[in-house]
């Protein structure tokens, strides 16, 4: 049995300890917002936070989640109070097909936590997620906008 928190709630699962956390989250716990795309850590669609660090859950066996605090896309904001990154994403109308966007957003959230004022170079070096619809141009704009929005609300 492996115990951990997801989005503030406690879970105990009895999956095979080597099961990627991605599938435990999606199928055992039922949070579908984190996506499977490459299964080999190449694309970032499966990005989540483990104790506030970005982790690609397709390459993270659930056994290492023991005692940790996991955050998924479902947990960074609510409908009443979306995360500022989500607000910026809507403002810039970033998503197209939308499949990869959870991963981008999780990465952007963490980026802004550590670096509230990222330069384009910072964004280039940190956001390595893949998008086949080519939303890259708007992802960048949305990160800058989120940074602005944070400043204004201070």
């Amino acid at each position, binding site marked *: 049995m492996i115990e951990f928190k997801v989005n503030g709630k406690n879970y105990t699962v009895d999956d095979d300890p080597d099961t990627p956390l991605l599938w435990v989250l999606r199928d055992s716990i039922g949070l579908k917002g984190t996506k499977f795309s490459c299964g080999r850590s190449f694309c970032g669609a499966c990005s989540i936070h483990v104790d506030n660090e970005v982790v*690609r859950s397709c390459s993270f*066996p659930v*056994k290492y989640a023991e005692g940790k605090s996991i955050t998924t896309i479902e947990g960074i904001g609510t409908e009443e109070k979306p995360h500022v990154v989500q607000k910026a994403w809507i403002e810039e109308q970033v998503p197209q097909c939308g499949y990869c966007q959870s991963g981008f957003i999780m990465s952007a959230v963490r*980026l802004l936590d550590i670096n509230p004022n990222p330069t384009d170079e910072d964004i280039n*070096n940190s956001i390595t997620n893949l998008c086949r619809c080519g939303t890259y141009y708007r992802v960048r704009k949305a990160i800058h906008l989120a940074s602005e929005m944070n400043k204004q609300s201070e």
Partner: protein
Amino acid sequence: MKLLLKSRNIIKQVYSITPLVLVFVAALAFNKVRKTNNSESGYYPIAVKDTTEREKSIQKFKEVAKVLRHPRCINCHPSDNYPRQGDDMHKHLFNVQRGNDDRGAIVMKCISCHGASNNKYSGVPGAPEPDDPNKSRWHLAPLSMGWMGLNDAELGKRLLNREMNGNMSPEDLVKHMEEDPLVLWGWNPGGNRAPIPIPHEEFMETLKEWVDTGAHVPKEDE
């Protein structure tokens, strides 16, 4: 010797001339070789200890260097801000970089993908921290420990330079390479990654012999 024995007359003459000459010749002949006792002649060659040790040490170093330059080691010891990957040591895909702390850029940390053990499903390699089997140790060696593109002399110098190598004595280096889980990973990389081609014990033996023989490294002009 045989020469001397051929003609009794000459022998008598030579023997009578100077034993010192013999000794000198013998010393020259056995200069670089072994400290063995040639019991046939009852003769002990005198080895010049310093030169022999240094040569031997450098020989050992070259064997060590071969391992250090193997992809499993050097991929994480780049001399720039880009880790390498694969047996062909290509630049790590997906714009992965060193970051400020050798542990990856913000939000693209090494441990975002690389776990505490080789992941058999994703194929991503991993290794644990020595004190925590569930925590990933994956990271780059600091720039001061970058080995790519260095020749033997430069590599050796860098390896021994305590200001650059994390203040490690040669004995510390041995301990590091004996025990560090990330180093040991090089022998158990998983996937189709070529492991270090000689067994770890053999490598440690060579390494220790290098240290025991004075941890010499070649000079630039050698």
